[in-house]
């Protein structure tokens, strides 16, 4: 409920401003991650989530579903991007325990600032820093597994670059992010635990090829901590994205999330629709 109100306030705020953001080149705004921040799908990028340039603002929203053998993750979120400088995001995750019954809900509030560069035009990659404040509402499973906390903040730095025409004439995009985190499975299983209770640096990366102005395909990798000692695995996915216009994007991915809460081999389909509202 809180989340919906926030989205409403953001939309109100945004619609009262004059300059709609559509000044970036198509595709260069990227997508929305399952934690709300602009990026790929599971890795936050240095790009901000809208098509605003430094004179513009924008607002976007997305829904994402990841269907796994024993779980289902539903995410709904929104973000605003101001003057291609700062991004604020909210996301609400509902993690369905389809085998066991029940669900775990978490809200994530994110902020990101672009420090340097332009993903296409600058000589060096675009660099941004960001944070994600995570507030777990259903804490029973996290506590059962011995996690230390039910709230936590991730900090990350991301570098993203598009190289025009370098892969047999196609454009290449890559991203590398470093994240300081205590989160167990995004925070859905709490923060910290018996095995480790300190911030750890995790590496995340994406690489993709743009096969036309409207189609991209690629791969993502996300390193994960194992604070609970239940064998939390790194994540990987391969994706294809269709971007018919600056207004909307569709992504389909196959994600291998490994073992989740001790249940192995969680692989499944990732579907996401994002759109720019303003």
């Amino acid at each position, binding site marked *: 409920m809180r989340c919906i109100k926030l989205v409403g306030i953001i939309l109100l705020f945004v619609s009262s401003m004059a300059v709609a953001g*559509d*000044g*970036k*080149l*198509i595709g260069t705004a990227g997508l929305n991650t399952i934690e709300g921040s602009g990026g790929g799908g599971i890795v936050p990028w240095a790009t901000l989530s809208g098509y605003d*340039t*430094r*004179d*513009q603002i924008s607002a976007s929203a997305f829904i994402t579903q990841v269907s796994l053998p024993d779980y289902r993750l539903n995410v709904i979120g929104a973000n605003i991007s101001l003057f*291609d400088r700062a991004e604020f995001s909210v996301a609400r995750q509902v993690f369905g325990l389809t085998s066991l019954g029940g669900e775990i809900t978490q809200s994530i509030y994110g902020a990101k600032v672009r420090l340097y560069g332009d993903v*296409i*035009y600058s000589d060096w990659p675009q660099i941004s820093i960001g944070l994600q404040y995570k507030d777990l509402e259903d804490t029973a499973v996290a506590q059962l597994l011995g996690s230390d906390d039910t709230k936590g903040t991730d900090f990350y730095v991301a570098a993203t670059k598009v*190289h*025009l*025409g*370098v*892969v*047999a*004439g*196609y*454009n*290449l995009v*890559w991203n590398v992010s470093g994240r300081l985190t205590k989160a167990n499975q995004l925070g859905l299983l709490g923060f910290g635990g018996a095995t480790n209770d300190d911030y750890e640096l995790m*590496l995340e*990366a994406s*690489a993709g*090829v743009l*096969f*036309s*102005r409207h189609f991209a395909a690629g*791969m*993502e*990798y996300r*390193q994960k901590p194992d604070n609970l000692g239940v064998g939390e*695995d*790194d*994540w*990987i996915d391969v994706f294809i994205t269709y971007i018919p216009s600056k207004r909307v994007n569709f992504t389909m991915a196959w994600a*291998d999330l*490994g073992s989740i809460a001790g249940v192995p081999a969680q692989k499944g389909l990732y579907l996401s629709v994002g759109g720019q509202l303003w």
Partner: protein
Amino acid sequence: MVKGLLFIAVCGLLFVTGCVSRSETLYVQLGGQAKIDEVVKNFVREIEFNNEILPFFADTNIDRFTEKFAQQLCVFADGPCDYTGDSMEQVHGGMHITEAQFNLTVDLFITAMDKANVPHRLQNQLISRMTFTRKQMLYK
């Protein structure tokens, strides 16, 4: 760990693909001067129909622009031309071109290439040789 290595392997593959280069110049691959002239003609047409960009060209001698722009594209594509126009700073200084207007112009240029049936992969390579001009004209 295994997933990390898999990711690195795929990136390595992309890198290797990136290293395979063609010996023909971009100019030849594009189809020479005829194709460049067609693109420039289309580009002028796109500008004419764009309310945001057209005002910049209100006092422009279009014949001169067509000639100089085509020369410049030819040079960018390693073709057998000399650029005889003015520097990008001289030409665009004082126009206060915004980031959005620059990208919009790139979009018009892409449409011009699409309409001349320039393959996507050649479009990217040509654009990659033009991007350095952006810092010579943005907000100047």
